[in-house]
């Protein structure tokens, strides 16, 4: 009756060993133990928020375990205080489908480009590395449902705190250059990207996401083979991942293996039915609102966070308090970051640190002096270069997407 995943797993491990022998792969990166667990746990600040901190995922350090299979791993928030780029071994992980290849030989791997093109291509890693200009872009990758655990009323889905995001320097080739090499037909309208992950059940749809042709050819959308100067960790999409700067991570297809140029709008499940948001400002509706027009999630919105202050921390009165954090503008750069020490009555502008590009995290800092004893509510709000500010009140929708309300921490001053 019971069909435990450990059985499935042992099967796949045997396959791995057999495959490894045939292919002559001798090395296994990451943990050799598949039962190792950390004793540590962390309490995320919402009901049923206790999570394990685990270190047993390959090429990953300590991560917050949201689900083992398919892996959902959250970045512990203190990592964001350590620098503007999120280390690869702490970068969050989100997979939809259970069959994730565990062995990749880049010498055998091919990226296929087909559909409405003049010349279908099967590009090797060598081709991508040597036949196209190499480009780099710093960009935030954020799950559509980052911070879902804070929705009120709560909604179903992965119960992330704020760590389903990360910022990396991505290196690779422009999708535009690859499409141009294949020669896109004049009838083409969309570009559909598919990864190597798949379902166990035959009826489970393969993970595919589509972009409009214009978006795919904007010169910013990238096929990345590097993440912070290294190959991507397997769980972040090795050997190739689509990078869609300024857009939610659902479009950043991992283990990208196939690009199909379509002459009709994509009607596959993941593009047409999953990841839809209300077509309202901030994807915001009320829990009782019905018959709302839904559209595919798309551009990110601005956010900012405190990274060196924990909610409920005790601080000394009248002492210089260095407050710092990160911000990002969503689909454009950060114009300014405002901090309030009095629950939003008065706002001061924080100093922005080095600009790594408009799609990157931006570190900010401000020195405060809290004169009065008692509780203080500190708030932070980013405004992006389009003039969009984080809303004071959180949005709500049934999928728990696009949360970006002003963040706050309460301090006890004595």
């Amino acid at each position, binding site marked *: 009756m019971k069909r435990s995943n450990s059985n499935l*797993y042992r099967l796949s491990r045997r396959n791995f060993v057999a495959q490894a022998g045939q292919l002559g792969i001798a090395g296994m990166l990451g943990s050799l133990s598949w039962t190792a667990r950390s004793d540590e746990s962390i309490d995320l600040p919402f009901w049923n928020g206790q999570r394990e901190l685990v270190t047993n995922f390959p090429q990953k350090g300590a991560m917050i375990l949201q689900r083992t299979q398919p892996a959902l791993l959250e970045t512990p928030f203190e990592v964001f205080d350590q620098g503007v780029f999120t280390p690869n071994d702490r970068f969050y992980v989100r997979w939809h489908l259970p069959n994730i290849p565990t062995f990749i030989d880049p010498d055998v791997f091919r990226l296929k480009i087909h559909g409405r093109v003049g010349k279908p291509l099967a590009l090797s890693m060598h081709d991508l590395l040597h036949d196209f200009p190499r480009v780099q872009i710093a960009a935030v990758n954020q799950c559509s449902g980052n911070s879902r655990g804070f929705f009120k009323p709560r909604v179903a889905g992965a119960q992330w705190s704020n760590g389903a995001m990360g910022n990396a320097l991505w290196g690779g080739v422009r999708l535009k250059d690859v499409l141009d090499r294949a020669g896109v037909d004049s009838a083409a309208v969309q570009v559909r990207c598919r990864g190597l992950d798949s379902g166990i059940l035959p009826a*489970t749809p393969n993970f595919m996401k589509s972009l409009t042709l214009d978006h795919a050819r904007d010169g910013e959308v990238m096929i990345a083979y590097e993440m912070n100067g290294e190959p991507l960790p397997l769980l972040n999409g090795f050997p190739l991942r689509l990078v869609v700067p300024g857009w939610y991570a659902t479009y950043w297809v991992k283990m990208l293996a196939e690009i199909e140029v379509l002459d009709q709008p994509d009607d596959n499940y993941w593009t047409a039915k999953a990841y839809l948001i209300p077509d309202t400002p901030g994807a915001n509706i009320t829990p009782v609102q019905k018959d709302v027009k839904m559209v595919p999630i798309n551009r990110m919105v601005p956010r900012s966070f405190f990274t060196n202050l924990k909610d409920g921390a005790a601080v000394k009165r009248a002492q210089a308090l260095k407050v710092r954090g990160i911000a990002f503008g969503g689909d454009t750069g950060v114009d300014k970051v405002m901090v309030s020490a009095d629950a939003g009555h008065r706002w001061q502008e924080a100093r922005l640190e080095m600009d790594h590009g408009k799609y990157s995290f931006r570190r900010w800092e401000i020195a405060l002096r809290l004169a009065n004893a008692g509780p203080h509510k500190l708030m932070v709000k980013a405004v992006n270069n389009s003039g969009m500010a984080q809303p004071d009140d959180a949005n709500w929708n049934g999928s728990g997407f696009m949360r970006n309300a002003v963040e706050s921490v309460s301090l006890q001053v004595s």
Partner: protein
Amino acid sequence: MNLKLRTFSELLSTTIGLTLLSSVALQSWAQNQASTEKADIPRAKVGVVLPSSATTFPAGDGADIANSHCLICHSAGMVLLQPALSESQWQTIINKMRTAYGAPLPADQINALAAYLSKIVSEQDAPASATTK
């Protein structure tokens, strides 16, 4: 370069006991390549072992349905970490699993499974155990 890797691998893969040693060796080989030939680093082979979960659903009416159907595609962790949801909310989720992902759950078991899930993740009780996923 490929010849070098093949020879190296074949030599080591003859003995299973040398797997750990070869892991260290392959990583250091990859690192050497990284320093001298940065543009080629994504060409190193990668093999990993992904952790599994042995967690099953807690005892109760409906646990056998959950264990025999939900665990086909995903481990139990994320289910047990949901907020308290009503039976009707769980029915919506179960129907999505059936229609969108092809879960082979008979229609006449939807209500029983929804009732079970709403009971095990309930604010009336202590939060579902988060110690195993």
